[in-house]
């Protein structure tokens, strides 16, 4: 049974969750936060939609297959580790340009992977029922 209250709240909270998750990701380097928790919060937004509406609706909202996100996230994280190799530095050395550095890109990879992992499992479970 679908609850109108939950559905309305979800509509309100979803964008907040997503913005908050990006906020967590970006502030993580200096303040509490980071890619892992950011990814969890972002995934929660879609989990909330899956619960309030249905999984199909959450999948539409996400637009991309969560399993793909796992691959993309891992690829981004791995690619960030190779930037330093191009500069002649050892693998995974942080390369910084002002406030933006490869560790941030790496963290973004973690974020995307976590979203993919959580949603793959939750969607999979929810669709089973």
């Amino acid at each position, binding site marked *: 049974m679908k609850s109108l209250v939950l559905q309305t709240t979800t509509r309100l909270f979803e964008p907040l969750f997503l913005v908050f998750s990006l906020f967590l990701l970006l502030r993580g380097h200096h303040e509490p936060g980071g890619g*892992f928790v950011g990814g969890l919060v972002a995934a929660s937004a879609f989990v909330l939609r899956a619960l309030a509406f249905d999984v199909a609706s959450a999948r539409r909202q996400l637009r991309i297959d969560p399993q793909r996100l796992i691959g993309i*996230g891992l690829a981004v994280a791995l690619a960030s580790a190779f930037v330093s190799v191009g500069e002649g530095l050892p693998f995974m050395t942080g390369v910084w340009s002002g406030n933006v550095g490869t560790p941030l890109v790496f963290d973004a990879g973690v974020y995307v992977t976590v979203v993919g992992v959580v949603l793959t499992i939750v969607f999979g479970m929810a669709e089973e029922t």
Partner: protein
Amino acid sequence: MSFSKAGHEVRRGPLLILLIVVLAGFVAAPLAPWLCRSLGATRGGALLALVPLTLCATLAAIGPEALAGRGIFEAHPWVSGLGVGLDLRLDGLALVFALLITGIGSLVVLYAGAYLGDPGQAGRFLLFLLAFMASMLGVVLADGVITLFVFWELTSVTSWLLIGFDHEKAESRRAALQALLVTALGGVALLAGLLLLGAAGGSMRLSELEGARSAILSSGLYEAILVLVLLGAATKSAQFPFHFWLPNAMAAPTPASAYLHSSTMVKAGVYLLARLSPTLGATELFTLTVTSLGAATFVLGAVLAAPQTKLKRLLAYSTVSSLGLLVMLLGVGTQAAVVAAGAYLVAHALFKAALFLVAGAVDHETGERDVEKLGGLRSAMPITAAAAGLAALSMAGIPPLLGFVAKEVVYEAALPAPGGVLVIGLSVVANALLLLVAFESGVRPFVGALRETPRKPHEAPAALSVGPVLLGAAGLALGMAPALASSLFVDGFVASVHGEAPGKPLSFWHGFTPALGLSALTVVIGLAAVALRATLRRAGRNLAAAARFGPERAWDALWSALLSIARAQTDLLQGRRLRHGLALTALASGAFVVSGLLAGGLRLPPIDVVSAPLAEWALGGLLVLGCVAALLARTALAAVAVLGIIGTLVTLVFARFSAPDLAVTQFVIETLTVILFVLVLFHLPNYARLSRPSTRLRDGLLATSFGVVMTLLALSVGSLRRDDSITRFLAAESVPGGHGRNVVNVILVDFRALDTLGEITVLGVAAVGAFALLKLRPRG
């Protein structure tokens, strides 16, 4: 940019040419799926064939330079920290192999596109094939010991992908896994052998180790090195008793068989023996073991080949036999034997690849692969028939083909060898049986009356016939002009393996020598075998049935025993029920902690419980209440809800004691865990009834004692004196080194990013595993 470390000499070639040759295949491979999708399989294959073709031409162009002196050397920085370089070398031996790998490779790539037809399949196949080719080039061009090993293992992995290409067939998966396990087992032995070799010879370069021969022989490690290296070579080159994986690997698509199992992968072991001959060879032990290993495989392969009726299996067993012959010749190790090995290596690569490609074309055009059911295809497939005929004549050792020239020098080398009579006798019989195989695979499908086949036969398209025709013609051309074969291939091979080039080139006519007589005798016996093949086949079937009790059976038993142990252990420790596994984990780790605490003397810091602030009292009280509620919950849903509350309370504890990162993460995790639990609970009807009050009491006691033990541990850890240099380093370096004030996060994404990368990879794999469990269950 300088990578070279002191003590690690860097010799650069004039260009990066060898590096480019090795890496080109790896670069081209990922383009294959895309090219095949956008151009179609046949045209994609044709375009990709230009890669090995270009490499072949490049190698041919720099060949003369490589043959002069000791070869072309290149040293590139790789893992400088460990003193491991990407050391490459192109000498006569490497050149022969590299030319065969790229030359036959280009024909196989061209063939594979058209053979597979489907763009998706062809793209995936060529991706694997080109990666395999590059790995193989790495093996033969390696000068560094580690370089050799890394590429050696890459050939095992890429060939596993190729053999298991039809991954939906259980037979393919089994064959691929078997090949991988056998060759990887040999690979481990090889690594140990190579490291010992490097230690004994004082160098990690194969070219320098050749000069350290006497030091290696007197090091006391020689026997161990030889046995380990032989294990590597024998598994890769399918020598007895490891021969069984090769025929099974015929589950691969035919172009892969033509490439891997005739001219490349299985020749890697032969290459290794040839490469290490100057370093390890020509001792009594080497000669005895390698010669008898090769001879046994030579005869066994031929005997097992004769009764086969499937085209590919015929060819596979005959390949085992030919590999045995090559190993035997390298074991004998005289100059004549090395000449024979070089000549037969080239001849075999040409005719065997051609015959495999023909077998594929016949299968492709008729849908039939049993020679008993094939016949009369010469009118329908004249071009393929001609190519097959040339290859079969070469395999049978009929003049004027290269196979004949090679067999002559094999006999010449064997005549004066120790134990010559036995070797000669066995060789004649084995060669006669190979003649039978040549007839069955290359002649019989095309002669006689046309037989009914699943598909109406017609000539193969150009892409499928170019390969066999060129390979067959090459066997003919080199057979008619054997001096050319000498200068192109054999002389450089012999110079690398035996030390000096042979004085005289190969020749077609040696006069009325004993070798010619043996050749004639072989042909007579072979033809007799062809005439009596029905009888032979019946006898052979009994033998093949007996061979089922051979080494493959032992191998399978070994693996199933290993799996049984693993299964029994998993059942014992992880059980069929999560509850048992958790209980066991709690008991075992609790016992360890308790014994540790008792041994170290339990020292607890003074705890002032009474004057703790009210908020902490409240938190603690709520946590205890929550645990009691969880234990008493009537329904599973209630228990899960209470667990969620407990988790949130723990989050508050983290927040209270200034671990905000932990608190935030824990909070989201708790929320998601409750959701997951609820989703799972839908699948478990009446779960609450599964636990009786007595069970709950037991579980509650266990959980409480475990909690107490962990609390004691946490408290006593505080009183330990720790080395906090790491903590201080990380805290101090966070801002200057990691550009971040949040130390926790800087550790996660910078200082220990490799760990994090590993962790998210594990997460990803776990999610894919969960998905597979949920979604890919068999229906019904």
